[in-house]
Structure formats: structure tokens, C-alpha cells
């Protein structure tokens, strides 16, 4: 029994069957990659996991509880954090403030009315945020405006914000899309470090095979909304079905 269990999920947009009978099991403390050609339904699947979309049929269970019908903030509070394809951060706020917000969300839940006490008086929050910034190697940038960070640093900040919540499952949606090679490698190193140091399950959607094969322990190949194969990276490389659907063009 995995920490995330997707069973018989279907999602249809008008005449398009985006997801057809998807079954997926992500084992606890593993790194599970979901790959597939464009339009395979990877992002639709991810959106079904975080409450952005509701599947037509099927079930999505996280740690024995259904996530269906819950809103994104409720699902996050269950322990699922999401990293977006383009980094979603609070651009108008400082790096430190960016980091404090998830710390508040973790400690106080989805709503807490603290309108009269100074933010900087919350010593445990400030310390926690500071710690994560140091972990992320961003402590020197704490007073910078988040919008002025480089692409790689924005990604790093976003991942840090997710980790500050100590999630049980981290979902990454093409975390290296549009990145320079150096930034991509930095991100891979960061994710490897996270995987080694924490009890965390990572599910990653990715196009870049270099990233996938550097990180993943299990790989699910999605094509036309349906999982073709689920295998270890070694077995995926030579798999004839996968070659046919996807890797043939990518020349692995």
C-alpha cells in the first residue's frame, strides 16, 4: 500500500479523454517519476491530485484518506506540497517573508487571525524560516525581493517553501523546464540531497530524461491518458513499449 493510491481515475474534457483508467501507487519515501510525451495527461493527473481538478470517476487516496472534493489548501494541509512548472512565489515580498508564510501555514493552519502582534515577534517562525533559508543556501538573499531572484533561485526558493512545511509528499511539475543546464544540475543535486536527508516521498513529472534517470526509483510512463508501464529506471530504458511511445524520439 503506497502513500498515494490512484485507482481507476478518468477525466474527460468534452470529447477528449485526458485520463483513461489511471492506476498509480507511489510507495512511501520513494522518488516516483511520471513521464510521457506531450499531451499524455501528466499535468491533468497532477491537477487531480492537488484539488485543482476533480476526476470524473475513480479515487485518489493519500495516506488512507480521499483527497477528492477537497480544496487545494485542505490537501496541502494533509501533507502534499506542490512545486509548479514556472516557480510560483510571492514576487512582491522579500525572500524571508516568502519563507515565513509556509511556516505560518504549517504552525497555524489554513486561517489564523493574528492582526495585532508583530510578525517579527514570532520567534519560532523566524527561526524556522531562517533555518530553511540556510538549508537552501539562500540566507544571504533574505532581504531581496523575490521577483528579482534568478530563475534557478526562484525554483530553489519555491522548493524551500514547500520543504518548510515538512510535507509527506512533494509533487514537482517539470521542475527544470526552461532552465539552463547549470541550473538544472543544481536542482537535481538539491532534490537528491532532499531525498537523502528527509523522510519524504517525491512524485515528479518531467520531460528531461537526464533529470528522471538521475532521481527516480520508479517510473510510470503515461501515453494518451493511460499508464503503459511502471518499472525501475534500468528496465524502462530498454522497454519496447516505451521506446515505441516515447523514448524512440528522445534517443536514450
Amino acid at each position, binding site marked *: 500500500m503506497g502513500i498515494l493510491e490512484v485507482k481507476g481515475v478518468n477525466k474527460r474534457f468534452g470529447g477528449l479523454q485526458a485520463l483513461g483508467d489511471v492506476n498509480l501507487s507511489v510507495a512511501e519515501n520513494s522518488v516516483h517519476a511520471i513521464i510521457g510525451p506531450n499531451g499524455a495527461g501528466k499535468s491533468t493527473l497532477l491537477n487531480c491530485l*492537488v484539488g485543482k481538478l476533480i476526476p470524473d470517476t475513480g479515487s485518489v487516496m493519500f495516506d488512507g484518506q480521499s483527497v477528492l472534493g477537497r*480544496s*487545494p*489548501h*485542505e490537501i*496541502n*494541509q494533509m501533507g502534499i*506540497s*506542490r512545486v*509548479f512548472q514556472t516557480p*510560483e*512565489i*510571492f*514576487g*512582491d*515580498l522579500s525572500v524571508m*517573508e516568502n519563507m*515565513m*508564510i*509556509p511556516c*505560518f*501555514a*504549517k504552525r*497555524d*493552519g*489554513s*486561517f*489564523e*487571525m*493574528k*492582526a*495585532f*502582534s*508583530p*510578525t*517579527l*515577534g*514570532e520567534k519560532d*517562525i523566524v527561526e524556522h524560516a531562517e533555518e530553511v533559508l540556510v538549508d537552501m543556501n539562500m540566507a544571504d538573499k533574505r532581504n531581496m525581493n523575490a521577483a528579482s531572484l534568478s530563475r534557478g533561485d526562484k525554483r530553489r526558493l519555491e522548493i524551500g*517553501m514547500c520543504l518548510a*512545511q515538512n510535507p509527506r509528499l512533494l509533487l514537482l511539475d517539470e521542475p527544470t523546464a526552461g532552465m539552463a543546464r547549470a541550473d538544472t544540475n543544481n536542482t537535481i543535486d538539491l532534490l537528491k540531497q532532499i531525498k537523502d536527508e528527509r523522510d519524504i516521498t517525491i512524485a515528479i513529472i518531467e520531460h528531461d530524461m537526464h533529470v528522471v534517470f538521475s532521481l527516480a526509483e520508479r517510473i510510470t510512463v503515461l501515453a494518451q491518458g493511460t499508464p503503459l508501464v511502471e518499472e525501475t529506471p534500468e528496465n524502462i530504458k530498454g522497454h519496447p513499449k516505451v521506446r515505441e511511445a516515447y523514448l524512440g524520439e528522445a534517443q536514450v
Partner: protein
Amino acid sequence: MLGLNKNDMRLLLIVAAMVALAPIILNPFPESSAMAQFNAGYPDLMQRFVIFGIFAIGFNILFGLTGYLSFGHAAFLGAGSYAGMWMLKLLSINVIPAIIFSTFIAGLISLAIGWISLRRSGIYFSILTLAFAQMAFSLAASVLTPITGGETGLQTNLNDPRVLPSFLGGGASDGGNIPKPSLFGMEMTASFKLPVAGWEWTFNWGYYVCGVIMLVAFYVAIRVFRSPFGLMLRAVKSNQQRMSYTGLNTRPYMLACFVISGMYAGLAGGLMAAMDPQVGAERMQWTASGEVVLMTILGGIGTLIGPVLGAGLIKYFENIFSKINSSLLHEWFAFLPDGLEDFIVAIIYPFIGKGWHLTLGLMFMAVIIFLPGGLVELGQRIARRFGKGRTANATGETKPAE
């Protein structure tokens, strides 16, 4: 001190000093001089400065922090005024119950309007709030006449019961006259005039009551800006998607903010009724909602002191600039040759008197284009130009322009 950091405390003290000394600062010209009509230090106008200051401070908590532009805040202002008037009529001529009740009622109404309007954001939110405010205006002017007095409005009069005992401000009549709103016997209109050399300074009790309340409101706003709640509101403005995926529910944050902002408007409305016990539906009209938007933008969106400055500037223009007439202009330019004098007066005339809106409009455009940060940014630039060594901080630690 008071839970504020050094800069905020200094700002609060500066504002407090300005409020305390306003009767002197706003009367820079001797009574007999030709410039005397630019003096703004008379009670009625000073009261308006601080009351609209409160209104704008509250509006800025919503607009400045979250970026949600409400076009319906006049509804809360008007509701506060009506609620306050009823307290003055039914309960007591003392202003305390009036302003408490007006704040409370405005809070309730903003809860209802916010509950619905906050289902949308951006322009749709603005339109919804505008629609509600116009509905409130129409209702106040027609259907709700028994409560609002319809087109004639609501005044205190001799038939009012005022049920509280007289030492708390009860009693219908004050020796046959309608009693004037007071604070434990001190009438709001009571003034103390102090002539010094050519000047005459008027210290008005009502103004100082409003001033102290504004300082409290300002202090609360600073605390809100610096609180975790304020941080969440700025997060709403910055990225709502990231906020929900960080496990935060934006709706209660927005609703709480909307209600706080509405309560500020209600407090301002209640004070208006307390200073001048009459209210009509026009207080709820959309132009009044637009005015507070202008004040906030002129002063500096999202800054602490900006809205207060903007409110002061607009009210100053409305009351002083509008009084200049053509004969006065002729008087000023009398030293010029006749033809030139007429020419200059003809050019200036459209911008003054009834044309003061034109000047305001031009000023507003100039601010939007050249000073998006409003008067506060102007102050910061001046401070930087004259190199005070210290850079003014982003929250409005600047020399107030008024």
C-alpha cells in the same frame, strides 16, 4: 514602544504632533493678510481632514495590502452615519454610543457585502461592490425612508427620546433647544480661540476628539500592517495560487480584511454624524466611494501615512481652492497691465473656484504618471535629493507634505 519598531513609532509621533498642532500649522497666514483665505485651520475643515483620514486609512488596509479595489466603501460610510444618527436620536447625545454603534453596523453590512463580493476578484469584485453601494444609496433615498429619512435625510430634533439618563447624554431637550452632540457634556462645537499677534488659532473640542480617534485608528493600522495577518494580505495581493497551495485559505483572510476596512469607514461615518448631526443619502453615492480611491492613490497606495495625506490634500482643495473667484484673481494680478491681467486671469480661471476638479484631475494624472507612489514617493524623492544620509523607508517615513 507600544509594540512598534523605532521607525513606526517615530511616524506615529510625527502624526500625533501634526494632529495636535494642526490648528497652528494650518493657519500659516495672518488673519488680515491677502493669503488668509488659504488658511485651513478652522474646525469644520480640520474635522473633515481627520475623519476622511480615518476613512482612507481603512480603505488602504483593503486596497493597499490586498489590491482589491472596492468601489463601494461609501455604503459603509453612509451606513455608519445613519447608525450613529439613530444612537444620537434614541439613546444619548453623547458621541460614544454613536461611534461604537456605527462601527458595529458598518462591520455587519460589510460582512454581508464582502461575503458575496469576494467570490470574485479584480474588476468583477470592484463592480460588485459598486453595485451594492448603489443599491444601498437607492434604498436609503427611497424604500428605507422610515430609517434614513429619504431625501430630506436624518437630523436630531426635539421629539427624539434619548432614553439614557441625562448625565450620560440622555434627554430630548437642552433648555428648549436641540442638544448638540457632546462627549460627557463637552459639546463638539466648543472651541477655544487664541489670538496671537496677527494670527488667530481655534482649538476645537470636536476636532481633538476626532484627532485622537484617528491616531488610535492609525496606530491599529500600523499594527495590522506589521502583523502576520498583514503579511497574509500582502501574500493575497502577490500570488493567490501559491497561497492556496501553501495550505492557506484566502477567503477568510479577505473577508476579515474587508470587514476591518468597512468598520473604519463606519467609524468615519459615525464621526461625521457626531460632528454635524445630519445625514443624507448622498453620503453613500458612488462619487464618495471614488473620492476615497483618489485619496489613497494620491497619497500613496499601501503606505501608512499616504492615505491621510491624500485625504488632507483633496479636502483642502475641495474647501479652499474652490473658494477663489475671479474678482479675487483680479485683485492678485492687479499689478499687471490691464490686458495682461485679464489674459492671465482668463487662463487661470477655469482651474479654480468651481473648476477645482479640473486642477485635481490634472494633479491626479501627474501623480499617476510621474509619481506612482503618490505624495509619499514625492517626499522620499525630496528627502533623497537633499541627501539626508538616511534613506526614507518604504512605508512612508517622510516629511508630510501638508
